[in-house]
């Protein structure tokens, strides 16, 4: 069992799709929260295979898309300092700030490096004692444990030239914000499987209850996505709205105890601005008092951040599922994957970037 090809089996996919087609009798709008799920849907062409009545709405589960503009601008300012090596996940390099992106800073001489893991950044701090290594710690609850462990290690080993620029966001408050919006059209939700691997599923039962919406904890391989959709549709057609776990192999109900314990020690809840949406109370994490010495925001005086979104960008409305990307006036014109106005066009699974592909016609014939 390799946990990969088995969950992409085309024959089993066909069975799941057939069952979805057989079950659906009315139009339904289903939101997948996680950007990784959006990516998987597009990557495998799943949206093409669903019944016409099932509409997929891409939610705000893409940390690239929702990292607040001020955080990006702050990262850009810090990266521009000569003593700093700014380390980042690859996803963030092309996200536009108010005036430029990290690639732009790099081209002007800023030391910006892509890393796979925050531990790589810590290692850079050890091998470059004369430089300040800053790690741009974005992400949801899936990524926070890695960042927590890294700063915990830095503290234990006394690596003083390392700091974190933290911009973590939390899924349940965002889901609540989306579902409580008066213009919300979401009938069912696919919850982010790997966020739940860490945090457990407990937060979602009350949300399903309060908003009357089925919530299905869903994975990322093709069969996982299809099963998540199948269970959602099944509940919708039978008038239920429960929390179910369709990804049990990787999600125990209590999540990862050790990770949650460290998260409680390293981070504390804070209000967070979600790019394009606004401030959501208690929707983010920042370093706790004990670890504040590693906070890059405090270590580097980068004053006068004047975060200005292009007026034309409507990514916030897209992130909440209120408009489709092609309903934005700049879509495909001033705003394209090569010239993004907002993060939803940059990210490989941002809704606008995904739509830039949807809009093209043509159903290819079979290859012989």
């Amino acid at each position: 069992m390799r946990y990969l090809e088995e969950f992409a089996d085309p024959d089993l996919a066909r069975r799941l799709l057939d069952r979805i087609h057989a079950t659906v009798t009315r139009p339904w709008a289903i939101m997948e929260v996680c950007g990784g799920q959006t990516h998987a849907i597009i990557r495998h062409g799943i949206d093409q295979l669903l019944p016409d009545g099932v509409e997929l709405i891409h939610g705000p589960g893409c940390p690239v898309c929702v990292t607040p503009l001020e955080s990006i601008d702050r990262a850009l300012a810090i990266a521009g300092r000569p003593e700093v090596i700014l380390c980042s996940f690859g996803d963030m390099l092309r996200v536009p700030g108010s005036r430029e992106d990290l690639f732009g800073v790099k081209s002007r001489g800023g030391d910006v490096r892509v890393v796979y893991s925050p531990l790589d950044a810590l290692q850079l701090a050890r091998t470059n004692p004369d430089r300040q290594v800053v790690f741009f710690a974005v992400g949801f609850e899936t990524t926070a444990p890695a960042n927590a462990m890294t700063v915990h290690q830095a503290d234990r080993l006394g690596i003083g030239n390392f700091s974190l620029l933290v911009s973590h966001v939390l899924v349940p408050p965002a889901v609540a914000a989306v579902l409580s919006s008066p213009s919300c059209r979401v009938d069912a939700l696919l919850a982010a499987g790997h966020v739940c691997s860490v945090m457990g599923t407990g937060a979602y039962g009350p949300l399903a209850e309060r908003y009357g919406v089925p919530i299905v904890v869903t994975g990322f391989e093709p069969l996982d996505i299809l099963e998540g959709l199948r269970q959602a549709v099944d509940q919708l057609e039978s008038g239920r709205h429960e929390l179910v776990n369709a990804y049990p192999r990787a999600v125990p109900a209590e999540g990862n105890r050790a990770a949650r314990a460290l998260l409680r020690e390293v981070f504390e809840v804070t209000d967070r601005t979600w790019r394009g949406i606004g401030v959501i109370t208690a929707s983010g994490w920042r370093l706790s008092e004990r670890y504040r010495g590693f906070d890059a925001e405090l270590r580097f005086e980068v004053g006068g951040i004047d975060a200005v979104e292009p007026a034309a960008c409507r990514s916030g409305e897209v992130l909440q599922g209120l408009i489709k990307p092609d309903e934005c006036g700049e879509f495909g014109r001033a705003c394209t994957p090569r010239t993004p106005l907002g993060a939803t066009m940059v990210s490989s699974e941002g809704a606008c970037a995904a739509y830039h592909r949807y809009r093209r016609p043509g159903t290819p014939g079979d290859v012989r």
Partner: protein
Amino acid sequence: MCLAVPGRIVATRDADGVRMADVDFGGIRKDVCLQFLPEVKVDDYVMVHVGFAIQRLDERSALDTLERFAALGILDEELGGPADSP
């Protein structure tokens, strides 16, 4: 936020007080931090995200899930299901 990949634990060790593992991803090897999964051992499969194992994969659960998918088709055939659908 969720690009996590399954890998098999080949060997474990301690590095600076942190439990690390050499994980095999189909021939690709990567060093992974195991500190969040104190009970996993060699030959277990884990989900790895940005260099950290965040959860152990439960093989029984995975097999059950696949069996359920396979059973879907059988049920349809028995009931004369989707083959008749538009």
